[in-house]
């Protein structure tokens, strides 16, 4: 609205920049959302040994490929942060572009994987394991999509040398999305 940033935003009584403080709080709330879902899944999984049979139908190598993609995109995100710290907005934008590419790759792989599974009859209503599988991965994928879109905005700004501190903020969020997948991968794919 043309008022610029309020003075309130520029203060830092804790010594932590406001945006970073806020993103940590966002993550604290995300931890309980994902954590709630995953701990519920874990309880069911431990109570239902027969789910191993359903889990055997997940394709580990697809999950593994996606893990690799996300780890790499996290790596480029942190390099972007490094570049932004040095004030190199163009390089930061380019590296963020790689991260967005990683996000898209992840989603493409995911959609092929899901299409394959659904065509074999493993739909979200097939049994409760599959319900959890699609819900947890779907919630994660929503975060990937949201992260990629926001990252696009940050990258455009960074390319023009504006709001470079946001590169770090979106990076922290992206690493969190990565960490969630780090736990989803063994929970949904490896434990059979």
């Amino acid at each position: 609205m043309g008022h610029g940033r309020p003075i309130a935003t520029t203060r830092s009584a804790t010594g932590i920049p406001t945006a970073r403080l806020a993103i940590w709080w966002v993550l604290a709330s995300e931890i309980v959302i994902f954590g709630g879902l995953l701990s519920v899944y874990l309880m069911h999984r431990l109570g239902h040994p027969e789910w191993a049979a359903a889990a055997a139908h997940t394709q580990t190598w697809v999950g593994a490929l996606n893990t690799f993609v996300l780890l790499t995109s996290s790596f480029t995100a942190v390099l972007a942060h490094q570049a932004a710290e040095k004030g190199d907005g163009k390089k930061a934008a380019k590296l963020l572009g790689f991260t967005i590419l990683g996000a898209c790759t992840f989603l493409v792989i995911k959609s092929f994987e899901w299409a394959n599974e659904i065509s074999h009859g493993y739909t979200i209503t097939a049994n409760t394991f599959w319900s959890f599988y699609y819900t947890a991965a779907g919630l994660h994928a929503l975060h990937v999509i949201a992260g990629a879109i926001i990252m696009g905005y940050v990258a455009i700004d960074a390319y023009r040398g504006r709001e470079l501190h946001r590169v770090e903020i979106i990076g922290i969020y992206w690493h969190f999305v990565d960490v969630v997948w780090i736990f989803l991968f063994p929970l949904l794919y490896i434990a059979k």
Partner: protein
Amino acid sequence: MSEKNTRSDEHGHDEGHHDVPYFKIYVALIILFLISVAGPEVGEATGLRWITLITAFGIALVKARLVINNFMHLKWEKRLMKWMLTASLIMLGIMMAGVAPDVMNHEGNNWVNLAAQAAVERGLEDDHGEESEVVTVVEAQPVGFSAEASFGMICATCHGAGGLGDGVAGAALDPSPANFTDPVFWETRDRDRVLIAIRDGGVAVGASALMAPWGALYDEEQLGQMADYVMNFRPNQ
């Protein structure tokens, strides 16, 4: 932001960058990742299940720690942050501890979760057979609509399977549910009125409010079939 009566707190005064060997950490992450993928193979080959568990979840923890500490720079963050993230994890732990006795266990002090036990048994039996191609698919709603099945599932609770108004739940109702085999009942009814009653509830035709509206559950075609089914109970004049 021309006027500044506070100390200058622009973002510039941040602690500055950290010298983290990002590439080395990335390589370490990839190696750990490969181990976690290979884990189950080793576990299966040696028959030691705990290897899989350690490579899967132990390594996940290590990887998460590496990312959080070095990529997210939590290592250099103020103590306050670490506390609040820990707090959210502790809250989760409390939740799990309180919920698990009921949800994870299938029996306990004076209760037993028969449905879950049956599900486990069913599933394990399936597993012993040959590679089951498709997991038993249970649809929430019957795929093909059948007026008879719907009547049996929903209406019969009160109206009885034979339409005599003698369903289990109907016994307590006042006024009691309609008896579709009663000629007196049909003196004032026709198919249209039955259809409206099914769709919009008893109130819509000036009858008991305990006859619920079902329009939200079925489409017009299905409602028509239901009405026809009810008409079948009508004794021949």
